[in-house]
C-alpha cells in the first residue's frame, strides 16, 4: 500500500495529464450516458486533488522536474512544475471538476443523447491538452498539447445546439490552426538556432545568440500564435461566436481555461524563455502588447454594452478581461504581473460562474434546437423579471457581475488593485486611467442585465418558470462563492500569483515597494 502511495506521489506531475488522457477513450468505449459522466467526474476530481497536492509540494519544496519514462532531457520529455504552472494547473483542474457536476443536466438539454459520451471524451481530451500545456517542460510538447486541446475544443463547440455552432467551430478551427502553426514555426526556428527544445535550456542558450534574426522571428511567431489562442484584439474574431454557440457548460469551461492557458504560454515564453532582456529591453514586445491590450480592454467592454444576447455579451466581456491580463503582463512590473496572473484565476472563477448562471437560464427556457422551438433563450428579453422566478440564479449573476466591475470584497477588486498599482509603479498613470475607465464600462453592461432581471415584467404568464436544479445551481454558487471568498481572503491567490510573478521576473523580485 505504502509502495502504491509513493508511486502516486512520485508521479504526480504525470498523473494529472495521463489520467484524463486515458479516461477519454474509456468514455468512448463505455458509451453509456451516465456511466461516462461518472468516469469523467472521478478523473477530473482526482486531477484536481492531484494539482492541489502538486501546488503544495512546489510551494514548500520549490520547482519540480519530472522525466517521462525516466528519460532525461534533452532526449526525454520533461515536465516541469514551478509556482506559475502549479497555479494554472489548479485553476484548470478546479474549473473542470466543478463544471463537470453541472454538465449532465445541461448536456441533456443541449446535446443529442447519443453523443454524450463523445462530449465527455472531448472534454477530457481538452483537459488533457490544457493540463499538458501547463506542465510541459519543452517547447514541442507545448505545441502538441496545444493541438490536443484545440482539436477537442473544436469538437466540443460543434456539439452546440444551434446550427451556427458548426460554422463557429469551423471558423475557430481555421483560425486556431493558424495560431497553432505559428507556434510550431516559432518552436522550429528556436530549435534551429539553439539546438534544443527544452524550455530551461532555451532560456540559457537564447542570450548567447542574442540579436540573431532567427530568434526574433521565432519570438514573433510564438507571440502571434499565443495571441490568436488568447483572442487578443485584433486576433479575437473567433471568440464571440464560439462562446455564443457552444453548449452552455462548454462555454463556461472554455472561457475559464482555454484563454488562460494561452496567456500562460505567452507569459512563459516572453519572460522565461526569451527573457526580459531580449523580449522587452531589446525588442520591446510590450510596445505592441500594451496598446493592443488597452484597446481590447476598452473595446470588449464597449461592445458588451451594445450586445443584446447575454452569452455574447459575456464573450465580449471576456475580450475585455483578457485585455486586463495582458496589460498586467505588458507593464513589466512586479505588481502588474501579479495582477495579470491573479486575474487569470479570478477571471476564470467569476466568468465561469456567470456562464453557468446563463446555463441555468438556458436549462429553464430550453435551447434553440432539439425540437424546443424557443429561439434565442439567452437573449436579454428572455431574462425579463427572472429576479422573481429564479432568485438564486439572478443573485449569482449579480454577484458575478459585481466581481466583473471590481467592487471591493470581490476577486475583481483584487486584480484591479494590483493592475492599477502596477501601472503606477511603471509610471504610466494613463494606463491606470484606462483600466478604471473600462471598469466603469463594466458597470454599464452588468447593470443592463440587472435591470432586466429585477425591473422588467416577465413577458407572458405561461413563461413563469421555477428555479434551476441544484445540480447546475450548486456549481454556479461554488464559483460565485469562491469569487467572493478569494476577494476577502486574498492570501492564497495573491501569494501564489506574486510567487509566480517572481519566477517570471526574477530581476525585479526585490524592486517592489
Amino acid at each position, binding site marked *: 500500500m505504502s509502495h502504491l502511495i509513493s508511486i502516486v506521489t512520485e508521479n504526480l506531475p504525470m498523473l494529472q495529464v495521463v489520467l484524463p488522457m486515458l479516461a477519454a477513450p474509456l468514455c468512448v468505449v463505455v458509451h453509456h450516458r451516465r456511466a461516462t459522466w461518472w468516469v469523467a467526474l472521478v478523473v477530473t476530481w482526482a486531477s484536481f486533488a492531484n494539482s492541489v497536492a502538486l501546488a503544495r509540494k512546489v510551494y514548500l519544496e520549490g520547482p519540480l522536474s519530472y522525466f517521462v519514462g525516466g528519460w532525461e532531457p534533452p532526449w526525454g520529455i520533461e515536465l516541469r512544475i514551478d509556482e506559475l504552472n502549479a497555479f494554472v494547473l489548479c485553476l484548470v483542474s478546479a474549473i473542470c471538476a466543478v463544471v463537470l457536476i453541472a454538465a449532465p443536466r445541461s448536456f441533456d438539454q443541449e446535446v443529442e443523447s447519443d453523443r454524450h459520451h463523445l462530449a465527455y471524451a472531448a472534454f477530457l481530451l481538452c483537459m488533457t491538452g490544457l493540463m499538458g500545456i501547463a506542465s510541459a517542460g519543452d517547447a514541442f510538447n507545448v505545441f502538441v498539447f496545444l493541438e490536443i486541446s484545440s482539436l477537442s475544443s473544436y469538437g466540443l463547440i460543434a456539439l452546440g445546439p444551434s446550427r451556427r455552432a458548426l460554422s463557429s467551430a469551423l471558423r475557430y478551427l481555421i483560425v486556431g490552426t493558424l495560431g497553432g502553426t505559428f507556434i510550431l514555426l516559432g518552436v522550429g526556428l528556436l530549435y534551429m538556432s539553439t539546438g534544443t527544445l527544452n524550455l530551461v535550456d532555451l532560456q540559457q542558450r537564447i542570450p548567447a545568440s542574442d540579436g540573431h534574426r532567427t530568434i526574433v522571428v521565432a519570438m514573433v511567431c510564438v507571440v502571434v500564435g499565443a495571441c490568436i489562442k488568447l483572442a487578443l484584439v485584433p486576433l479575437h474574431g473567433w471568440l464571440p461566436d464560439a462562446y455564443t454557440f457552444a453548449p452552455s457548460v462548454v462555454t463556461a469551461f472554455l472561457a475559464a481555461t482555454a484563454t488562460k492557458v494561452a496567456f500562460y504560454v505567452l507569459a512563459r515564453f516572453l519572460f522565461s524563455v526569451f527573457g526580459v532582456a531580449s523580449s522587452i529591453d531589446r525588442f520591446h514586445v510590450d510596445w505592441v502588447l500594451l496598446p493592443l491590450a488597452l484597446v481590447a480592454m476598452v473595446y470588449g467592454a464597449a461592445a458588451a454594452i451594445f450586445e443584446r444576447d447575454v452569452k455574447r455579451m459575456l464573450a465580449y466581456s471576456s475580450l475585455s478581461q483578457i485585455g486586463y491580463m495582458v496589460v498586467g503582463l505588458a507593464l513589466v512590473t512586479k505588481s502588474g504581473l501579479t495582477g495579470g496572473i491573479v486575474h487569470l484565476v479570478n477571471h476564470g472563477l467569476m466568468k465561469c460562474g456567470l456562464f453557468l448562471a446563463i446555463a441555468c437560464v438556458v436549462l429553464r427556457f430550453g435551447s434553440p434546437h432539439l425540437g424546443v422551438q424557443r429561439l434565442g433563450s439567452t437573449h436579454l428579453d428572455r431574462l425579463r423579471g427572472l429576479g422573481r422566478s429564479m432568485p438564486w440564479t439572478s443573485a449569482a449573476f449579480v454577484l458575478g457581475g459585481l466581481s466583473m466591475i471590481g*467592487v*471591493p470584497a470581490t476577486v475583481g477588486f483584487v486584480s484591479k488593485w494590483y493592475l492599477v498599482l502596477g501601472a*503606477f509603479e511603471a509610471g504610466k498613470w494613463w494606463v491606470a486611467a484606462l483600466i478604471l*475607465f473600462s471598469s466603469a464600462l463594466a*458597470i454599464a453592461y452588468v*447593470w443592463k442585465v440587472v435591470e432586466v432581471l429585477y*425591473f422588467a415584467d416577465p413577458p407572458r404568464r405561461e413563461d413563469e418558470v421555477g428555479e434551476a436544479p441544484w445540480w447546475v445551481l450548486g456549481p454556479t454558487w461554488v464559483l460565485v462563492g469562491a469569487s467572493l471568498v478569494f476577494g476577502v481572503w*486574498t492570501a492564497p491567490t495573491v501569494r501564489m500569483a506574486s510567487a509566480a510573478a517572481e519566477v517570471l521576473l526574477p530581476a525585479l523580485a526585490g524592486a517592489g515597494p
Partner: protein
Amino acid sequence: MNDAIGLTPESVLLVAVLLPLATAVAVVAFGRWPNLREGATLSGGAVTLALVAGILLPAVRGGGRPRIDLFEILPGLQVSLHGEPLGLIFALVASSLWIVTSLFAVGYLRGHHSPNQTRFFTFFALAIFGALGVALSANLLTLFLFYELITLCTFPLVTHDGTERAKKAGRLYLGLLMSTSVGLMLPAVIWIWNTTGTLEFRPGGILQGHVAGGSAAVLLALFAFGTAKAALMPVHRWLPAAMVAPTPVSALLHAVAVVKAGVFTLTKVVVYVFGLDLLSTGAARPIQWIAAFTLLAASVVALYQDNLKRRLAYSTISQLAYIVLGATLAAPKALVGAGLHIVMHAFGKITLFFCAGAIYVHAHKTNLRQMHGLGRRMPVTFMAFFLGSLSVIGVPPLGGSWSKLWLGSGAAQGDEPWAVAVYMLASLLAIGYLMPVVARGFFGEPSPDDAFCRDQDINEASPLLSLPPAFTALCCLALFVFAGELADFLGGMLGAPTSTAIGAP
C-alpha cells in the same frame, strides 16, 4: 462594569458595526410578521446607539483612540476599525437618525400600503451597516469598502417603487456614484499606497513630505469628485434624480447615511490623510472654488424648484458644499465647523424631509403651489418645517447657527474673506428658498378648487408621521445648547483636546 461583560471599546467598535448587519438578518427572518420585523429594526438601532453613545463616546472623549484590526484583505493591508471624534460624531448621527427614520418609515410605508417592506427595511439596515463602517474605518481601504457597500445597498431603496422613473434614477444613481468612486477615488487610494506605503488615517496626515503641491491638488480633486456622495458639481446630478424614492429613503440619503458619508469621507481625508499643513499651501484652491460655486449655484437653482423634494435636494447640495468648502479651507475652526455642520444639517434636513413626506402621505401634495394654507391644517408638521428651515438657514436659537458661525470664523482664520462672503450670501439665499414654503403654508390663500386646504378643521398627519419631524426639530433646538460640547469634542481630531488651542468661534 463594561470590562466585566467583555465590552472593551475595541470590541464595541466591531459590535457596533456588525449590529446593523445582524439587524438586517433579523429583518429578513421576521419578514412575515411586520410588527416583529419593525421591532427588530428599532431594537437593533437602540442597542447600536447605546453602544456608540454609552461606551465609545466616553472612551474617545477621554482621549482614547480604540482600534481593532479584523483581517488582512490584501497583503499588508488590514480591514481595521478605529474610533476618533469625527467618525464617532458621524456614527452617532447615523445610529440615532436610523431609529427616528425607521419610525417614520413605518408610518410612511404602511400609510402608503407600499409593497416589499421587508426588502426595504433589510437594505435600510445594510445601508446603516455601511455608514457605520465608513464612520469607524481606520484606513482608506476599509473606508472605500464600506463606501461602495452603501452605494450598492441603497440602490434597491432608490428604485423601491420599481417604476420607469425609479429605474432611470437608479441607473444615474449607481452609474454616477460607482463610476466616480471606482474611476477617481480608487486610483487616488492606490496612488497614495504606492507613494507612502500606508493607508492609515493618522493625525497630521500621511502625505506630508511624500507629494508636492501639484500632486496634492490632483489627489484632492480625485477625492473630491471621486466621492460623488458629497455632490460637488458636476457630480451632483444623482441627488435630484434620486428624489423619486420614497421619502424615508430621501431622509436616509440626505441626512442619515449617504451624503453624510460623502462629506465625512472628504473631511476625514483632509484631516487624516492630507493634513492641514499640506493643504494650506494652496493645493486646495481649485476645489475651494468649485465648492463655492456649487454652494451658490445650487442655492439659486433651489429658488426655482416648485417640487418641494427637488427644492430640498438642491438645498442639500448647497449645504454639502458648505462642508466641503469648510474642510478644504484647512483652517482648524473651519474643520470643526465642517464636522458640526454634518450634525446640524443632518437634523435640520431630516426634519424638512419628514415634513415633505408627511405632507405627501397625508395631503397627497408634492408641489409648492399646492400648499397654500396647508400649514393651518397641519400645524405640527409646518411648525417642525419652520424650525428645521431656521436651523438650515442658520438662525439662533437653532443648532445650524453654530456650525455656520464656526465655518465663517474658520474662513476668517484661514484669511479667506471671500469664503465668508460666500457663506453669508448662501444663507440669505437659503431664506429665499425655504421660507416661502412656510409662509405659503401658514398665510397663503388656497385656490378655490383645493377642497383639502380650504377645509378649516385641523387635521394633522398620523402620529408616526408627525412626531418624528417634531422630535428632530426639537433636537435642532437642543443642539444649539450642546454645540459647544460637540465643538470641544471635535477639536480632538486636530490633536487639540480642548477649545483653547482652537479658540472660540
